[in-house]
């Protein structure tokens, strides 16, 4: 016990004398949380549009003014032909082409139907998808307006239609930040867990002090606890700062119990520190540890559901997310912060992460040898 407390004292002394670590624990979360949610945004605005109007009728004019006034599209050019418009896509000036065919108005009036073409530049997948969807929506709207003008008299619609109205639960305004901020908080804890502890141990390997520790009678578990606890505490400090920032800057007050967030974070950090520890037992240099750490971190992040929904992943990827503590925590964070989920709702997640913590840590301890 005396040994452990001195080990902790030593680690904290070193941390407080190392401004880089202090900064990364205290300042990094503030900066990341303030900047990224504004920049990393799902909403697609500024879709560059190239119009090809072959009809030059009043209806086509009406349509163009409708689409440009929607706010999503910026009209870059009117092209005389589809091929010309294609050129502006190729030179990356436009993302989307809408072509109104010749005789659009005539068809519409006469035949009661008309065709229109949307072509999307799919190099940027997200923009293409959403841009196309927005355009389709506007066209549908436009269509409805015309129907309204012409068929004012029938008591009920000749063609039965199902109108879909959706309401967004738990995040009624679909505020992207409320969704993103809890996720970014998880990212921060992940970084502290995977990197700080592993780099710390590998640093002792590099400078050679671990050799002296290895010949000492100190037990493996005391040594490892002495390394885990400081970073576990630092992780919780970061979480606290992060929650404060999201409250002060974004007004995000967790609907659920904050204590539950902390409980989960404690277990989560244990799992992540286990990953860091595992890396440090294999890596001989800080360069190796950083590279492996980054690789693991990328997998955790991209398969963690922060940017892309896990439900839409292929089955094999879903299986990976089952052993990804980050995926559990991001989900739990959103559940507690946005929805106010209680203990019973996150029980399964908590147990899974606890299991992962046990696996990672025992693997690391088994692989840490005081002798080779």
């Amino acid at each position, binding site marked *: 016990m*005396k040994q452990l407390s001195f080990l902790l004292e*030593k680690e904290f002394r*070193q941390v407080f004398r*190392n401004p880089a670590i202090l900064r990364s624990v205290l300042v990094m979360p503030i900066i990341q949380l303030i900047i990224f949610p504004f920049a990393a945004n799902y909403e697609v605005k500024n879709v560059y549009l190239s119009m090809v109007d072959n009809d030059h009728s009043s209806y086509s004019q009406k349509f163009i003014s409708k689409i440009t006034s929607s706010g999503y599209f910026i009209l870059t050019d009117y092209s005389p032909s589809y091929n010309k418009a294609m050129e502006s896509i190729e030179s990356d000036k436009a993302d989307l082409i809408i072509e109104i065919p010749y005789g659009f108005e005539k068809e519409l009036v006469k035949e009661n139907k008309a065709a229109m073409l949307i072509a999307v530049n799919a190099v940027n997948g997200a923009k293409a998808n959403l841009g196309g969807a927005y355009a389709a929506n506007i066209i549908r709207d436009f269509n409805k307006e015309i129907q309204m003008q012409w068929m004012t008299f029938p008591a009920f619609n000749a063609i039965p239609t199902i109108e879909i109205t959706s309401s967004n639960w738990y995040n009624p305004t679909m505020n992207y930040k409320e969704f993103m901020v809890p996720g970014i908080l998880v990212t921060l804890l992940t970084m502290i867990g995977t990197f700080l502890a592993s780099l710390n141990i590998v640093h002792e390997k590099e*400078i*050679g002090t671990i*050799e002296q520790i290895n010949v000492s009678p*100190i037990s493996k578990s005391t040594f490892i606890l002495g390394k885990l606890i400081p970073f576990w505490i630092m992780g919780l400090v970061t979480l606290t700062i992060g929650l404060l920032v999201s409250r002060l800057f974004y007004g995000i007050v967790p609907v659920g119990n904050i204590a539950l967030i902390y409980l989960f974070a404690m277990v989560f950090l244990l799992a992540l520190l286990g990953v860091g520890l595992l890396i440090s037992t294999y890596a001989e240099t800080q360069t190796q540890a950083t590279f492996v750490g980054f690789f693991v971190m990328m997998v955790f992040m991209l398969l963690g559901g922060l940017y892309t929904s896990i439900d839409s992943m292929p089955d094999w990827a879903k299986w990976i997310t089952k052993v990804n503590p980050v995926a559990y925590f991001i989900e739990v964070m959103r559940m507690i912060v946005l929805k106010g989920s209680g203990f019973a709702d996150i029980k399964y997640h908590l147990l899974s992460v606890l299991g992962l913590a046990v696996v990672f840590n025992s693997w690391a301890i088994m692989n840490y040898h005081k002798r080779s």
Partner: protein
Amino acid sequence: MPSIAVENIIKKYGSKKEPVTALDDVSLEVSKGELFGVIGPDGAGKTSLFRILTTLLLADSGTATVDGFDVVKQYKEIRNRIGYMPGKFSLYQDLTVEENLRFFATIFNTSIQENYELIKEIYVQIEPFKDRRAGKLSGGMKQKLALCCALIHRPSVLFLDEPTTGVDAVSRKEFWEMLKALKQQGISILVSTPYMDEAELCDRVALIQSGKIMSIDMPQHIIQKFTKTMWSVRSAEMVRLLNDLQHYSNTEKCYAFGEFHHLVLKNESGGKDEILQYLQHLAHHEIELHLAQPNIEDCFIELMGNNKS
């Protein structure tokens, strides 16, 4: 009971197909209170031997005991009673002198006060800087602090792996004085060094080369075993001189040695005059030639030659 007993230790590194033998059937014994030197060039296997004895490395075969405890089965006992200063000894640069010492005391389950007597003489020299960070100490002071850290738990056997490598001549001398003082306290010391001149400061030495021990004896005895006559030669053109002497028909061995070249002849009959004649014939001038007292390094070079043939 010897402090350290090593029997037929073999350690190989690398793949099974191309193993590199670090220690080849090494045996030695160090008695209690002895200052024992392991002398050999870089890559001779010194560090591997130290790591096996300090329970950090497992040997492929052979047995070793430290203080009567087996290095494999009773490693926990050994870890309580040895002090180890690795070649790459390091302190926590960002902790102060005192904090470093406290740290090493704590991991050995002791305190500075408990064994202060033992390190006192060394520690008083660095005590004025006890609040300075270890990273800001000079090389010699770092070395003293490192020695204090290795001694703080009063080990009965001290392992020093190249403690004087990269330390200036004055500090080296001081360091050996400290080791002598520690010996008085009954601590057995196993020290390795690539510096041959330090061998003479040990009670006994083992000369090691390519994982093999060539000779174990008191330094004086090793020198006494060197029965050939040795000459010191110098002239105005040292490089050409070495080359010419190596091509001299009566030369057994000739190598650079400080300001002189050391020369061992195959046949002593001609003696000084013959060499002088040969050199003058080759237009060397300012020739200086006299008999030299062999030292450990000469013995080492001699033994190396024997080993190869």
